[in-house]
């Protein structure tokens, strides 16, 4: 008996293939019991998220297992096994266990170190528990995986530091403002990145949103989609003076706000701090604005620079994460093998030094 995994993820297969073999939540109970019955596996869990579909099984180690699982995965979705063959990976113990631990820790994620996956692993495990497809081995396996994922996140910096432009902007806003939800935000231009950043900030509870765009036809639907209020482009300075956070993302080839204008604005707003985010290329906010007091101007290079430095930091952490995983893997395998003592020989007691035996 051994733990195996068959699956595909964002590294191995394109999204067109991943979405065809993904399991819907309501399909899981059927799929789990079919997997258990048809393939004679003793325990199984299906992990299906937008970036991966993986079948974990505890089964008799037979040569045809991989092929059978592949046929099952293809067959369940009405596909030819050969159509999915190229995107699949297959791991046997102990690589399968290591793979699960890495997934749970977010090391295998597209956004390295992200935490969502841990919740997804927990949910998929609970689904399998509800479908009665897990037993003592997988209970221990998944609980250890969840514990390892948590430990990796808490004892390393793998999940720390924003690594996307919009999340960097949110983090910076939180370093400046005490209560972001009470602030006013002005979005200039209909650039996609600007909207994404705005939505990220909206996640912090901002209610007061102003939208300005050169063409009114674009501004109106944009304001509707983000739940904001249109302000006339001609009176940009007036609107800007009301805002605490200004996101600028336009295709204009000139400065939309100059240093003189912002200085005037700061007088109107009684020197309350102002956070300016310029994600347009070429820049739309005069870099000289940054020299004014209580004004914090970040352009796309600044934000990308911070994101990149955080990503480097996360990548540096992967080594420590791997060590934690190896440690947990070793403990898990030792305990599992000991638990299956009737199948595998127990390690010779005399292999260990006497002190250790007494200690136990």
């Amino acid at each position, binding site marked *: 008996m051994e733990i195996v995994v068959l699956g595909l993820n964002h590294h191995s297969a394109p999204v067109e293939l991943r979405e065809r073999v993904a399991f819907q939540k309501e399909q899981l109970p059927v799929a789990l019991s079919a997997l258990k019955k048809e393939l004679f596996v003793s325990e199984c869990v299906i992990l299906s998220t937008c970036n991966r579909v993986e079948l974990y099984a505890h089964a008799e180690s037979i040569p045809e297992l991989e092929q059978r699982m592949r046929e099952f995965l293809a067959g369940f979705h009405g596909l030819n096994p050969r159509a999915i063959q190229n995107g699949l990976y297959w791991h046997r113990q102990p690589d399968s266990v290591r793979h699960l631990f890495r997934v749970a820790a977010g090391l295998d994620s597209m956004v390295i170190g992200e935490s969502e996956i841990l919740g997804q692993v927990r949910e998929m495990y609970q689904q399998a528990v509800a479908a009665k497809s897990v037993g003592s081995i997988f209970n221990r396996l998944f609980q250890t995986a969840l514990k390892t994922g948590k430990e990796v996140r808490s004892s390393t910096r793998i999940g720390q530091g924003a690594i996307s432009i919009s999340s960097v902007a949110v983090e*910076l806003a*939180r*370093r*400046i403002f*005490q209560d972001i939800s009470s602030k006013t935000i002005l979005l200039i231009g209909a650039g996609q990145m600007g909207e994404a950043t705005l939505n990220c900030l909206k996640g912090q509870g901002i209610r007061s949103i102003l939208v300005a765009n050169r063409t009114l036809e674009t501004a109106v639907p944009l304001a509707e989609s983000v739940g904001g209020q249109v302000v006339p482009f001609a009176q940009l300075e007036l609107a800007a003076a009301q805002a605490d956070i200004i996101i600028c993302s336009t295709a204009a080839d000139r400065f939309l706000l100059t240093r003189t204008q912002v200085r005037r604005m700061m007088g109107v707003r009684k020197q309350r*701090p102002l956070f300016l985010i310029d994600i347009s290329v070429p820049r739309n906010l005069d870099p000289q604005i940054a020299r004014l*007091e*209580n004004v914090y101007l970040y352009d796309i290079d600044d934000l990308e620079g*911070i994101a990149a430095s955080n990503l480097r930091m996360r990548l540096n952490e992967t080594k420590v994460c791997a060590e934690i995983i190896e440690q947990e893997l070793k403990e898990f395998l030792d305990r599992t093998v000991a638990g299956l003592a009737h199948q595998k020989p127990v390690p010779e007691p005399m292999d260990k030094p006497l002190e250790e035996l007494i200690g136990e």
Partner: protein
Amino acid sequence: MITIHAALLFLSYAAFFVALISGVAFLKQEQRLKHKDPKLVGARILPLEAWDKINWTSVVAGFILYSAGMILSLGLAHKEWGAFFNADPVELCALGTWISYAVVLILRLKVGLKGRRVIFLSVMSFGLVLFTLLALNYMSGTRHTLF
């Protein structure tokens, strides 16, 4: 009377000390924001506005306590030494401190300045507080004694 005088001033020093700490924290963080320090993102620290609020509240509280302590000291000086103002070194230092924090208040309330420069002044003013305390203990020619 003299106990209340000392207690008020002691409390005001405590408030000014809080203003010092929060002011330094503000200045440091504002500098990091201006210089785009990547480590700022993800750091578990209070936002700039919070430091500003703590600094401002403690300057105001400290100033009120300090003023009360000073008014009381005028009465005390008159009673004990016969004059409201005796140009005692401690009195001079205290007056300097009071003016310094008053300037902070004026700049912020009347001139409408906010942020780095005003907070820097509130931090520097604490130097005068320390100087007054030193004068209290070590300067000859003062009739003030600590405890």
